[in-house]
């Protein structure tokens, strides 16, 4: 007769897991949850807007710079144009034209005036050949233009005859017919001065 009062209880398996208890969300709760996609789209949209604004402001600033550059260019070109107009007005002055015409061998006529009427081709007045008087005469252009000094005289092409000595020898000699090689004559700026060669 044993008097063992201990008794064996059944062993539990050590690998027997604890019951895993999980709260399962109901369908309503699942439906109520916001979807990730929406969040991603919103954030991406924000970034896109942000970048777009950045790009636009870069472009605008760039445009402003090119406007500024073009305005500068316009102003500079306008100034160039005015400087060239200044020179053109000078070259168009009658003193220059008369001296250049003389240098090209043109003649001034003091004979009585005659007109060619274009409507019917009639000659009005008594026409006669140019009497060979020179444009500015032996004394040169006598109407001063201080701004003109240094403009080279136009010379006739080399094969054309120089001012005919028989017409007015004193003028041909005094006006310095441009036959001397290497010396470029210039329009005189003071009255009565003979055309002067450009010195170098």
């Amino acid at each position, binding site marked *: 007769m044993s008097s063992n009062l201990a008794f064996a209880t059944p062993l539990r398996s050590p690998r027997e897991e604890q019951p895993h208890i999980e709260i399962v969300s109901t369908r309503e709760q699942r439906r109520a949850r916001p979807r990730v996609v929406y969040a991603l789209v919103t954030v991406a949209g924000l970034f896109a807007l942000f970048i777009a604004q950045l790009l636009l402001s870069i472009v605008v600033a760039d445009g402003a710079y090119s406007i500024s550059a073009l305005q500068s260019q316009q102003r500079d070109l306008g100034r160039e144009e005015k*400087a060239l107009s200044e020179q053109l007005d000078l070259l168009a002055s009658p003193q220059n034209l008369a001296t250049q015409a003389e240098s090209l061998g043109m003649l001034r006529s003091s004979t009585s005036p005659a007109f060619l009427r274009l409507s019917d081709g009639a000659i009005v007045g008594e026409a006669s050949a140019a009497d060979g008087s020179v444009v500015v005469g032996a004394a040169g*252009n006598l109407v001063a233009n*201080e701004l003109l000094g240094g403009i080279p005289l136009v010379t006739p092409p080399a094969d054309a005859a120089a001012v005919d000595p028989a017409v007015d020898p004193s003028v041909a000699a005094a006006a310095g017919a441009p036959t001397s090689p290497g010396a470029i004559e210039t329009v005189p700026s003071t009255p009565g001065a003979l055309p002067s060669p450009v010195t170098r």
Partner: protein
Amino acid sequence: MNNARRTKRRVAVTVLLVVAVFAVFVVRLVDIQVVRADDLNTDSLAKRSIAETTYAARGDIVDTDGNVLAGSVDRFDITAAPNVMNSFTRTGDDGVRTEVTVEQAIAELSEVTGTSVAEITEALTENPEANFAYVTRSVPLETLKKINALAIPWIYPRSNPGRTYPNGAIAGNLVGFLNTDNPGAGVELTENDCLSSTNGSSTYERGSDGIRIPGSTVTAEEAQPGGKLRLTINSDFQWYSQQTLNEDAQALGADWATLMVVRVNDGHLMAVADYPSVDPNNVDGVPTTALGSLAFSTPYEPGSTMKAMTVASLLDAGAISPTERVSVPSLLTLPSGGTIKDAFVHPDVRYTVAGVLTNSSNIGTSLLSEKLNKDARRDYMVKFGLTQRTAVGFNGESPGYVPETKNWDERTNFAVQFGQAEQTTSAQVASIYQTLGNGGVRMPLTLVEGCEWPDGTVTDLPSTEGVRAVSETAADQTVGLMENVVTQGSLSSALSIPGYRVAAKTGTAEVAEGGVYTSDRVVSIAGLVPAENPEYAIVVTFGKPDTIKTSAAVAPTFKKITNQVIKTFRIEPSTTATVKMPLTW
């Protein structure tokens, strides 16, 4: 328990520290924004914000076709700011950065502008605290480009338009010139209200390194450009007139000469040439007597060109008829004992009015004048414009002088009718011939066509009101009589132009000096073309010629100018034949 206390202490310390730092900031803030605010504001503004005057262009002076006689051109003043003047770094084309000192920059500036280093240094160091100093003024675009290329940060070029006269001495006597900034003579002076521009003002801001802050310019007032002044002058014809007058005056050895061409129907001046005269680009190149216009300013005894006015006056008053006959002795003795002589010795001769004019007989004129009382004769002179300035009102214009009738002695009584004992200007003589050519109506002599403003309005329009001096019949008869001078007179070969009818009157006036008549003469020819229906009056005068002392000296010039008038203004040849009147009876 301990934990809680420790935590509370840490929190308290942190809060205290934060408050302390905050307090420092507040004190500093109050100090700057409240205590020193005004001083700091003024300081910074003075360093940053610069006021400047902006300039607009002065109005152009143009001829009747728009050719520029006086214009504005781009010129630039180079200014500097001495208070920010420092050395700076310049990046070369190859990327190399070089340090440029102030002295080096000044040397570079001197080389480009032509002003000496000493001058520039003095200008910049005179007042080191100044915001503003001139380096040089009025440089052209080329120089500006070179200065910009130097890229000196404390240099500020400014636009300040300059004046140029691209046609030089053409109408230089009329246009005038500027003395530095103010008008000195001519139309530049008298029409300054039209031409002058109004300055504007603007402010801009500048950083401490001297660079102008872009976009900071605020224009307080826009600068207003001047109006464009249009003259009646034809510049090509004016050149021809000046060239011919200069050539012939020099050939004759004359002291002075004038040439005027007036359009008869409205009194507009086509050309006014003076010898000597000035090139406004080079005012110092001529003596001061040549700076104005002698045609307006210098009166002289005109001589026989006045006989045409006398004849017209007598015809209008009905005192004589165009075929009047007079017996002219070789010498006219006055009751007081004085004598009146003709230019050449002749026996007693029977002249018609045409003969008196063609032979320019002083005695004949005197005998004809006796038929009208002196007050009436002087009234006619006033109606023809004598003793008054012309409507041009030129700078320094003279009204001439005809003595009051109560002061006429026996000699003056006759002498004023043939152009002695009285003084006129060339402008007045031109006006008389304009009147004769315009059927007896004296139009206001006009030089300025108008002032054209940028907004399109035109001001300063000339008057078109004429004054009737003599009837149309009297004027036309006088012109017809004057034609005989050209067709039958002693200078007819020199004055005739084939195909055209020209009327003219010669004049050889004695010159008085110190109350005594000398051997000098003022020779002139005044005329009208075409004689059958005059369009232009031409007056050529040479003062004290040396080589030829009669009006024969003037004939070649008169003919050349008349030819040029015909060509320039397209006058058709005369279709009617000249009427040659008998000179004697």
